[in-house]
């Protein structure tokens, strides 16, 4: 009981602090517009009217947390999943391209890392390009990818997933290269005294040693896969996905919709990272790498 309190208390404190600041800003930022409305209508207003009304605007500059919560409730629980207005529908579309992109990014990242560690020429020639690839702003390159792939007939899930892949392979390469090179020189000498082949050195030493590094990278990779998927949904003409909800919301000044999509994306990221963290924990524990 006490342990649970000790874990929840710090988080709850921070959440409470954020809520207080958020409500404060809701009133502060929405007040000028609300006051203008009172004056136009010639309404006498008190401070408590202002506080109440600024938290209940249709298109506030900053919606109150409970408005977002209600919006999320209405667009998830109270809408059919097949509805175009369901956040679960849009979230599912984003999630599928996130997961596909993450999977491809991880596989690509591991493949590149192995070739870099096992081949000197690859090490020299690939690494600079991999680093360069990440210096290009994703917002600039995402529409290009979508447009180019659309013109060759690739639409829907794959182009978006490729943007996720483009972002997520990078931490996997970097982490995996470090992991594959992490064995102590002593361990490498040890394998040498056994006349271990290159393959045995890889499978029995380098690969298992890299597993903790891989999981650390995958946590970063899955979060930016989600970012990639959302960015990938922006230039598709706002058809579907959380990115589309964000874009549509900003076209029509639907700030509550924007914020509810944002919060949903953040929750999804948190859940995805937790799942990878859990798999990591279980795997490392079974491998004896975590006490």
């Amino acid at each position, binding site marked *: 009981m006490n342990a649970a309190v000790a874990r929840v208390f710090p988080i709850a404190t921070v959440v409470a602090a954020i809520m207080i600041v958020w409500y404060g800003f809701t009133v502060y930022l929405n007040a000028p517009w609300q006051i203008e409305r009172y004056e136009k209508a010639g309404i006498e207003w008190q401070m408590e009217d202002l506080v109440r009304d600024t938290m209940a605007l249709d298109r506030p500059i900053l919606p109150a947390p409970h408005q977002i919560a209600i919006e999320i409730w209405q667009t998830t629980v109270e809408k059919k999943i097949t509805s175009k207005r369901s956040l679960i529908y849009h979230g599912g579309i984003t999630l599928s391209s996130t997961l596909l992109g993450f999977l491809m990014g991880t596989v690509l990242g591991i493949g590149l890392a192995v070739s870099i560690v096992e081949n000197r020429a690859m090490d020299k020639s690939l690494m600079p390009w991999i680093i360069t690839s990440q210096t290009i702003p994703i917002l600039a390159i995402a529409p290009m990818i979508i447009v180019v792939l659309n013109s060759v007939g690739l639409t829907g899930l794959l182009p978006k997933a490729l943007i996720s892949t483009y972002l997520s392979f990078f931490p996997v390469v970097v982490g995996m290269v470090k992991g594959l090179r992490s064995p*102590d020189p*002593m*361990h490498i*000498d*040890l*394998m*040498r*005294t*056994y*006349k*271990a082949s290159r393959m*045995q050195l890889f499978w*029995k*030493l380098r690969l*298992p*040693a890299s*597993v903790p590094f891989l999981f650390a990278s995958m946590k970063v990779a899955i979060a930016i896969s989600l970012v990639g998927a959302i960015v990938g949904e922006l230039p598709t003409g706002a058809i579907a996905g959380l990115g589309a909800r964000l874009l549509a919301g900003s076209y029509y000044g639907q700030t509550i919709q924007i914020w509810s999509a944002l919060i949903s994306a953040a929750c999804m990221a948190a859940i995805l990272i937790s799942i990878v963290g859990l798999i990591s924990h279980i795997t490392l524990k079974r*491998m*004896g*790498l975590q*006490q």
Partner: protein
Amino acid sequence: MTAETSSNAVINANGLCLTFDSSDGPVHALKDVDLQIDKGDFVSFIGPSGCGKTTLLRVIADLEHPTRGSITVNGMTPEQARLERAYGYVFQAPALLAWRSIERNVGLPLEIMGISAAEKAERVARTLELVGLDGFGRKFPWQLSGGMQQRASIARALAFDADLLLMDEPFGALDEIVRDHLNEQLLELWRKTGKTICFVTHSIPEAVYLSNKIVVMSPRPGRVADIIESNLPDERPLDIRESKGFLEIAQRVRAGLRQGQL
């Protein structure tokens, strides 16, 4: 082979030199080392840091290559000997693989050599018993104390039955009490198995207690200062270290080390 080389020489080095290139110019890790180690010897290499004792062990193991001179291991080049898996090597640290249980660590060399699962299990069990770790096979390295981990690494070196055991300061990081205990066990193991053991240390009592031959080395350049044959009985209780014979040998080793410093 020269005339004085007996046929049961396990290691035979003649005029062995090894120079490392560094930014401050060449470092003479080994210079003109002549050495013969016979079958069943327990040889200690002792000297201050930088005297080349570890380098010499690594040359025997084909982990370093001499720049000049010749060396044979079991009558072969060190590389051939390594490829024949002629020796087991114990490092300064246990160097166990953290993701493998103790029995899978000990079984690692057998796995690499492609030995059948049944024989592997049998040999792992036997060697774990030999080092007093029976019952700990399913533990992970982090669940064992430092001394037990080092015993596991010795078991791993013994698992594939090489006749030669190369040990590089295996007990250097352990406390005195554990060290005494492991020294006793190592001696018993040596008597039981009749293996040839090369043992690097910087402790005089350890060298005198364990070996029947002590190679005293001196630094810059690394060379052999003295080779002392010990006449202590094979049966050595720990309190032999207070005996007159023991102290005399220790005295000679100390004198050899001091002379090497000049």
